[in-house]
């Protein structure tokens, strides 16, 4: 036989559990609403990501074409049998990395610094700097330290000098070159000689035609 106090206790317990259930129901409704909103946001984000991806791919292709073209042209203007230069964006370790490819007769040269005699890398790296400058358009001044150091053939040095001059004239960029190579010095608009005098660097303009 269950007494009145026991019934009252059971009733109270029942009401408390009902209260808990009501609260959980309300919370569930709230969570379901949040889930719906989150799913809508997710769909928007997925659409936005797809758009960003398309734009990024197109931009990458444009950059690839722009830079590959410029560097290949620079190489062709110096060397008689030039390498074709290709920029290739490759996804690696969740990042996009950029490979620099030098191609001749359909074969890729992955070790241009050593097998290309250094001169090819010299011209390509200068052209890459110009390409980067032309994309970012920072101040129209470019400093290059011994840009044709590994270009030993005087004929190639002369062609490289012409290339610097043409780029400077066409793009309106001032190229300040540090070099001791005759071909580069002769093609410059202005020449300054820097020498050491009692431990102090002295800069003097050289009469130049």
């Amino acid at each position, binding site marked *: 036989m269950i007494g009145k106090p026991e019934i009252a206790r059971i009733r109270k317990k029942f*009401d*408390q559990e*009902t*209260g*808990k259930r*009501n*609260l959980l129901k309300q919370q569930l409704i709230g969570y379901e609403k949040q889930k719906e909103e989150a799913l809508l946001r997710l769909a928007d984000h997925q659409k936005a990501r797809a758009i960003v991806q398309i734009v990024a791919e197109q931009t990458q292709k444009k950059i690839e074409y722009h830079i590959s073209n410029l560097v290949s042209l620079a190489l062709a203007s110096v060397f008689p049998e030039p390498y074709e230069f290709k920029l290739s964006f490759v996804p690696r370790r969740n990042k996009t990395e950029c490979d620099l490819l030098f191609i001749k007769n359909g074969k890729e040269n992955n070790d241009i610094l050593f097998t290309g005699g250094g001169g090819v890398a010299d011209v390509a790296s200068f052209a890459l700097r110009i390409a980067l400058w032309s994309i970012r358009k920072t101040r129209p001044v470019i400093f290059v330290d011994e840009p044709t150091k590994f270009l030993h053939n005087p004929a190639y040095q002369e062609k490289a000098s012409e290339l610097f001059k043409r780029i400077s004239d066409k793009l309106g960029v001032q190229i300040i070159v540090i070099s001791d190579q005759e071909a580069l010095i002769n093609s410059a608009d202005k020449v300054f000689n820097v020498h050491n005098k009692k431990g102090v660097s002295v800069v003097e303009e050289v009469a130049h035609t």
Partner: protein
Amino acid sequence: MNLEKIQKDLADAVAETDKAKEHLAKLEGQELEVLRQMQEETGLLSVEEAGKEILNLDSLLKEKMESIEKDYNKLKAEYDW
């Protein structure tokens, strides 16, 4: 007649009290559930503990905001934007 009315009033009062008790029990149930969830999520056992924790977090937040504002102004002055 009067007695009937008194009986009815009493019955209404009892029904109302029962209803209030039921409501109170339901609210107690909700409170117990809220406290259970709070303990599960934050390890806090009572409303008092939660109040103290909120004050602590408020003060921590204030410190962080001041620090962020100070560093932001420093960067603003340094890079002149």
